[in-house]
């Protein structure tokens, strides 16, 4: 069990990290129109302030020895009954500080960008309030010191995403997408709820320190069950198979929301949950294998979907699924992978925010058109957007020295350490990444202009491009920084443990092979989408392309297996309730109906009615007697 450091000095502000954006959310959402003029700026400030505190905390942590970097802060006892207790208490350690910084710094950039992106929206203030809520919930999620409090952040993230995805509520598709995200996430929540209950039944506590301290005493069956339930939860939040289908619909939200969901918050929560619970997964081998399988399936599904979508945001969403698949796979590998899951999460957070905000910047200049078949040759008119986008693109496909190269390579390495099959699958998916991302860049910024007649593409204002530049700088240097300057492996080791296995071949072989595969994928895409003309209407395509456009039929499967049966059951029960249960008391119903004027029709021969009326009469008599006696 790790010894907790008292929350003193800057660490006494752990709760403030959450309270600031939460207060921002409360003021903006409850304050109403009065806060319209200054509200958005307050929203930016609260997140930025949390970011500053986060940086100070990181510096403070680095002063201490690695064993003394876990800080605990208890505010009050929150839920208690019998032997159950969950506190309003926080834990800040090497893992959570990484998330705090990612959430607040990338979050701040997204907030700033939104000042420009949402400048003309009437409900701008509400938007910033909900963004703040999102950040606050995510911070609570990563700072809670027990699973029940984590659940509050977990569901808070779900709520914020629901509100933001359906932000443009007048659009039925947006409202439907938000609801879908929430309900599918609820399926995952069932997993989290049950995992929490099973932990309490097994360990008598839901606190991280308690549970991890005695986890090895539980039977493997129990640990496997807890692990699988946590995986179900992670699948919901991180859009992993089979709960992936909400993510592409979530593109209905304003683009900064997509950046927030995909980079800094929400989808990373599942990875956090698994890595945080590493003690359980390390002890439950089969649960960890399930994690790998889910990760690999989603890695491929996402890449295939991303390769076929013509909608720039949906293609990026497919890429998120795929990249999170990498992280989940790494998290399933055990101590050889945990660190790299987080490393990739961090680099992905930066370059994916850059890509989404870049896509938003493109849309901003293209009348909100998302169809890449209507883009082309935009590099000339949107220099900054194109430049930063291409840097982030090089990062995601893993070209050295950009940050994705380091983190993805580490995951592929770790995969080979575990099994050649996992390694080869992860490596090939990297080639596919090269394909779909090059396709996107080629269709958007290169080739011929295929703009619609009323499109007048232009570069976005500085308030939007400066965040892009900062993110591009991050995507360029973050990977090198975390490998050569600050070693993320040794930083996280106290939390996750680190293990390395000797590989059959020297490591440069894997690196080079991956790079070659990526370049092949990129070359194919370049030839097909930059050198050749891209038709404005999508060609019919192969069966795989068509399936990928349909998101591999995830929605159809859900509909057939879950949604339709639910509604059939519902309608059947409504019928039954009217005819069956209510019909059973037909006698009284008929009698009752009679009193409202229909009595005559039923007056003959309903013994039950008469019995009932006698019963009623008897009771009234008793009542009258009692009342008389009372006076």
């Amino acid at each position, binding site marked *: 069990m790790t010894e907790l450091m008292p929350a003193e000095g800057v660490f006494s502000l752990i709760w403030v990290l959450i309270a600031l954006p939460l207060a921002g959310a409360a003021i903006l959402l409850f304050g109403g129109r009065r806060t319209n003029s200054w509200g958005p700026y307050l929203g930016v400030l609260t997140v930025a302030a949390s970011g500053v505190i986060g940086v100070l905390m990181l510096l403070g942590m680095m002063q201490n020895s690695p064993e003394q970097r876990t800080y605990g802060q208890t505010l009050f006892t929150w839920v208690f009954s019998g032997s159950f207790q969950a506190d309003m208490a926080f834990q800040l350690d090497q893992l959570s500080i990484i998330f705090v910084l990612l959430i607040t710094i990338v979050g701040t950039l997204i907030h700033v960008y939104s000042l420009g992106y949402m400048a003309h929206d009437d409900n701008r203030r509400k938007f910033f309030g909900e963004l703040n809520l999102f950040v606050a919930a995510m911070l609570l999620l990563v700072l809670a010191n027990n699973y029940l409090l984590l659940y509050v952040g977990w569901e808070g993230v779900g709520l914020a995403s629901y509100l933001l995805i359906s932000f443009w509520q007048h659009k039925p598709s947006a409202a439907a997408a938000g609801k879908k995200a929430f309900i599918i996430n609820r*399926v995952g929540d069932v997993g989290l709820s049950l995992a929490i209950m099973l932990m309490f039944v097994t360990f008598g*506590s839901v606190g991280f320190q308690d549970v991890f301290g005695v986890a090895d005493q*539980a039977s493997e069956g129990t640990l496997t069950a807890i692990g699988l339930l946590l995986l179900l939860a992670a699948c919901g939040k991180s859009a992993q198979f089979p709960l992936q289908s909400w993510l592409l619909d979530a593109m209905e939200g304003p683009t900064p929301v997509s950046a927030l969901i995909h980079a800094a918050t929400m989808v990373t929560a599942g990875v956090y949950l698994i890595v945080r619970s590493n003690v359980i997964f390390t002890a439950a081998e089969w649960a960890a294998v399930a994690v790998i399988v889910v990760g690999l399936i989603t890695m491929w599904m996402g890449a295939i979907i991303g390769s076929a979508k013509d909608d720039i945001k949906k293609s990026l969403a497919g890429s998120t699924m795929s990249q999170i698949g990498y992280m989940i796979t790494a998290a399933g590998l055990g101590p050889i992978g945990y660190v790299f899951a987080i490393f990739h999460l961090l680099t992905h957070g930066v370059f994916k925010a850059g890509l989404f905000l870049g896509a938003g910047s493109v849309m901003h200049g293209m009348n909100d058109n998302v169809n890449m078949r209507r883009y082309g040759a935009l590099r000339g008119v949107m220099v900054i957007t194109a430049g930063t986008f291409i840097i982030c693109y090089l990062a995601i496909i893993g070209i050295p020295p950009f940050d994705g190269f380091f983190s993805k390579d580490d995951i592929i390495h770790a995969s080979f350490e575990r099994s050649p099959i996992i390694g080869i699958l992860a490596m090939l998916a990297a080639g596919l990444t090269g394909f779909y991302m090059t396709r996107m860049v080629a269709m958007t910024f290169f080739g011929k202009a295929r703009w619609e007649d009323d499109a007048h593409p232009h570069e976005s204002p500085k308030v939007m491009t400066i965040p892009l530049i900062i993110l591009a700088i991050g995507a360029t240097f973050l990977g090198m920084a975390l490998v050569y300057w600050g070693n993320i492996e040794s930083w996280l080791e106290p939390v996750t443990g680190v293990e390395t296995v000797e590989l059959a071949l020297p490591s440069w072989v894997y690196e080079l092979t991956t790079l070659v595969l990526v370049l092949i994928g990129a070359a194919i895409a370049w030839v097909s989408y930059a050198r050749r003309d891209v038709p404005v209407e999508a060609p019919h395509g192969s069966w795989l392309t068509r399936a990928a456009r349909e998101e591999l039929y995830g929605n159809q499967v859900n509909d057939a297996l879950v949604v339709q049966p639910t*509604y059939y059951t519902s309608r059947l029960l409504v019928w039954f309730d009217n005819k069956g249960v209510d019909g059973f008391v037909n006698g009284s119903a008929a009698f009752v109906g009679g009193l409202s004027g229909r009595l005559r029709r039923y007056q003959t021969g309903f013994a039950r009615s008469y019995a009932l009326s006698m019963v009623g009469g008897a009771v009234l008599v008793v009542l009258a007697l009692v009342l008389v006696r009372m006076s």
Partner: protein
Amino acid sequence: MTTFPWLTTLGVVPLVGSVVVALLPRGRGLLAKQVALFFAVLTLGLTVAMALQFQGDSSEPFQFVESHPWIPTFGISYSVGVDGIGLVLVALATTLVPIVILAGWNDVDEDGGRGTVKGYFALILVLETLMIGVFAATDVFLFYVFFEAMLIPVYFMIGRYGGVQRSYAAVKFLLYSLLGGLFMLASLIGLYVVSAQLTGTGTFDFLTLTGLEIDPGTQKLLFLGFFFAFAVKAPLWPFHTWLPDAAAEAKPGTAVLLIGVLDKVGTFGMIRYCLPIFPAASEFYAPVVIGMALIGIFYGAFVALSQSDMKRLFAYSSMSHFGFIALGIFVFTSQGQSGSVVYMVAHGLSTAALFLTAGFLMARHGGSSAIADYAGVNKPAPVLAGFFMIAALSSLALPGLISFIGEFLVLLGAFERYLWVGALATVGIVITAAYVLRLYQRTMTGPVKPELEGMHDLRGREITALVPIAALTIVLGIFPAPLLNVINPAVDRVMTSVGATDPTPTVGLGTTVEGTDK
């Protein structure tokens, strides 16, 4: 311990208020409302003053106890007192009454022809007296009297001030309740006879009755009478069919008091009377009750999913929630029972939020409660939509709100006793989310219906009524200690009286060591 007769005072104040309101001249509707509100707020103030003196860690089972002989021949006395469970339910009732009065300010007008304005508000105050009485009674006969007497004001509130089918709904409600009450009366008499056999002198005193060692066979019989009355009141599946009609025909305020508070008497009765007086029978019937509760959770939720009428949707949703509450009571764990009591409070608040917000909405559109008559309300009335969202989230038990704490503890309590029951019930949270969000989606989002374009957003009075509910829902969700501190000791006593103990963890920390901050 103070000797001031807190509970009697609490009960008398609204009664006096109702007499004053009733004596006002006809046509002075506004004055009647103001007087009614004054008395309701006064009662709430007294409740707060009383609650502040409640000793959470007291060793006495009941506090603010008063006892006076009433019908000594039959061992009946006017005895009142509250434990933590009674206290929070009394507080729920006295909190909701002023809110309902304020919210229903314009619900009744003098020209309606059916009933007078003052009549409606006088009935609300009478009902408040009876609700306080029913939660405070410590004499089972006194409880029964309040239990039955409550029907009368509600009957008139629905039958006289309700919608088109009001008569049908009111009589259906009355008959169901009377039938339940009759069974309870029979059991009550039986209980008296048994107590006479066992102690020599018959009694209705609750504490004496819980100390009796009643023969298990007799318990099983007597339990049924009480349970049936409570299961109709709560209502549990399959005794629920009166509820949708009553909810649909009642004024929003009436529905809030009916479903939010009155129906709690059913679940309150189960934990207060069925368990401690009939422990063996409770254990014997637990599987049946749990079965009914589970069916109710899913049945209510599934039926709610396809409702085309808002009020009926809320009614079926409540039925589903009552399933959770009953489940928590009958799994015999501290978490389950504490959770149930918290759930009762939370459900009272969420029901109030839902019915009142929907009521404000309906009042703006000819009183229609058909879901299909609304769309895109968020645009003309964002504040209304905002409160509707909070109500919806409270209903689906969003973590961070008080309803989550109730629901989670219930599920945890069920899970630790019967793993698969708890696991199955947990799946219910998905369907709850589905029907609640579907309702929000259909009414509040999408393109605005043309006839709703010019709709006014909520006004000051309406916001004033909703803010306390929303605030309590959020604040108690973050800091539920004020509730848990008083509920937990009462639940411990119930657990002791049925001889139940919580299962112990399989490994590790044991039952006495817990905490998350070590």
